[in-house]
């Protein structure tokens, strides 16, 4: 390692840190991303210039292929598909780190114990990240079923794999050159482990999974930094690792579940019995015309979006209705639960795409204290995150989860296809409250019907 190179790497690390710092406000975030990308460009240029002996032909092939694929994907992806894309990219990052560690072993098998140990860690994290992310991507894009996949003895199989990996890792670390078959065994087992760890996790728990895999992809880069003794990889990898862990913690807290519960319980795999009597009660259904009358008279309205908004691609229709309400003198807010959607901040991005200004996006903790002052709360494709059972039914699986307390608003209009249960498989008492009105149908169609009512009324 030569000296000047290391100094430029310090500058790169500084730019990454500055970039993350500017991400603390939507007003400066874009500049932060730009600075961060400059840091990356600098790191690449300096690496190429600082190592004169590099043969460029293969580098150019890889860079060109990656840049074309990456740029195309970034341009084409629909905002509703962001969770899949992030999941896939996490997997690529993990695999890239694994490959670099594998390369080190391949070209100099006689590694010292410390380096061999870090090669093992890098392969382990990178491999789990790669296959785990592929499964997460499959579930999010509905290429495979989003339902938890459970089989008898699942935990036992996982534990056996982990124990075998530990034994293999120790053998490999102690004498890497003599244990090439062990290395390949480790590769295969980490790939299998990644699959097994993610298949038992249901679709709506994916925000936690992709946050965790995000963290792993950083830690894999960090481990690879130890392998090749490169400080910028270590610093950057740990920044990403920390970021993913924080997001994971926020998501778990917003569901009042431990990480272990999310990862291992197979939540959502069974339809638990609906609490007594709920089926007998009647939900009051309204037409778009009735809903229009309520909204037209409201002084303040809060929209509560959920995954159903993303599925119905209803973000633009929601904003259009919001704009008409504002023009009518109504105060409009969008209340967003931390786990609404399939990844952290999913709803915010969709609404931003539809040109909702970010000062209208309100967090759960900010909306709940003023909920009783809101005349009409419109639920668009959300279910469990507004289920009052989380507050008052101790037998409910979601008891204790913080919710958006929509039931305390003057009137609640719920846009939903049917009275069916949400992801947690439990009925929702909110649908049967005295102040609740169901507006059945596709969320987008319902919103458009309301927009049409407003436009008709204005002539």
């Amino acid at each position, binding site marked *: 390692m030569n000296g000047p190179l290391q100094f430029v790497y310090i500058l790169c690390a500084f730019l990454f840190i500055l970039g993350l710092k500017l991400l603390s406000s939507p007003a400066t975030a874009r500049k932060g*991303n730009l600075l961060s990308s400059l840091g990356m460009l600098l790191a690449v240029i300096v690496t190429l210039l600082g190592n004169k002996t590099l043969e460029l032909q293969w580098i150019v092939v890889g860079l060109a292929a*990656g840049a074309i694929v990456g740029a195309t994907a970034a341009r084409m992806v629909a905002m509703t598909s962001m969770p899949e894309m992030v999941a896939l990219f996490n997997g690529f990052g993990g695999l*890239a780190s694994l*490959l670099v560690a594998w390369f080190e072993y391949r070209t100099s098998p006689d590694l010292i114990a410390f380096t061999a140990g870090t090669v093992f860690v890098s392969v382990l994290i990178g491999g789990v990240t790669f296959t785990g992310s592929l499964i997460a991507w499959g579930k999010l894009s509905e290429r495979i079923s989003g339902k938890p996949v459970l089989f008898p003895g699942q935990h036992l199989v996982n534990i056996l794999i982990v124990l075998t990996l530990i034994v293999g890792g120790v053998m490999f670390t102690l004498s890497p050159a003599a244990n090439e078959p062990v290395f390949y065994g480790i590769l295969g087992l980490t790939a299998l482990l990644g699959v097994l760890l993610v298949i038992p996790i249901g679709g709506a728990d994916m925000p936690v999974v992709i946050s965790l895999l995000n963290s792993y992809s950083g830690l894999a880069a960090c481990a690879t930094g130890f392998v090749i003794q490169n400080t910028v990889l270590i610093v950057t990898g740990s920044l990403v690792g920390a970021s993913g862990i924080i997001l994971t913690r926020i998501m778990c807290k917003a569901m009042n579940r431990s990480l272990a519960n999310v990862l291992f319980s197979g939540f959502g795999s069974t339809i638990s019995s609906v609490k007594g009597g709920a089926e007998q009660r009647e939900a009051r259904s309204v037409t778009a015309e009735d809903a229009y009358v309520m909204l037209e008279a409201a002084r303040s309205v809060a929209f509560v979006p959920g995954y159903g908004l993303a599925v119905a691609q209803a973000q633009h229709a929601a904003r259009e209705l919001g704009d008409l309400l504002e023009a009518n003198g109504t105060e409009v807010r969008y209340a967003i639960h931390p786990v609404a959607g399939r990844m952290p901040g999913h709803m915010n991005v969709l609404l931003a795409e539809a040109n909702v200004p970010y000062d209208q996006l309100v967090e759960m903790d900010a909306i709940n204290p003023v909920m009783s002052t809101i005349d009409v709360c419109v639920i668009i494709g959300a279910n469990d995150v507004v289920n009052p059972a989380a507050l008052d039914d101790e037998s409910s699986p979601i008891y204790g989860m913080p919710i958006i307390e929509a039931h305390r608003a003057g009137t609640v209009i719920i846009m939903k296809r049917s009275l069916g249960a949400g992801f947690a498989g439990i009925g929702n008492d909110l649908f049967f409250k005295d102040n609740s009105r169901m507006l059945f149908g596709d969320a987008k169609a319902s919103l458009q019907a309301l927009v049409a009512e407003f436009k008709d009324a204005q002539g």
Partner: protein
Amino acid sequence: MSAETAVLLAFIFMLAVVAGFELIAKVPSTLHTPLMSGSNAISGITLVGALLAAGTAGDDRVAVALGVLAVALASINVVGGYLVTDRMLEMFKKKERKDGK
């Protein structure tokens, strides 16, 4: 690698983790998706290691394959991650700047 280097690297690791926690805790929830795609791009830093690998692979075909694939995957992360993050952040606007239709 000397024990001294190992300790130094571990020390850097510790400081970076602490800095990471402090920085990320201040990111508002409304920006969590761009944070994830942005940190995805940053984790493409493994590209630096991949470049060194692909450039020193020599005639070993397996090593070449490992290096080139690593470069390609890491640069997908870097290029795709930064571009899509920029595309998203561009959409976050304040009310005042919203120009009517």
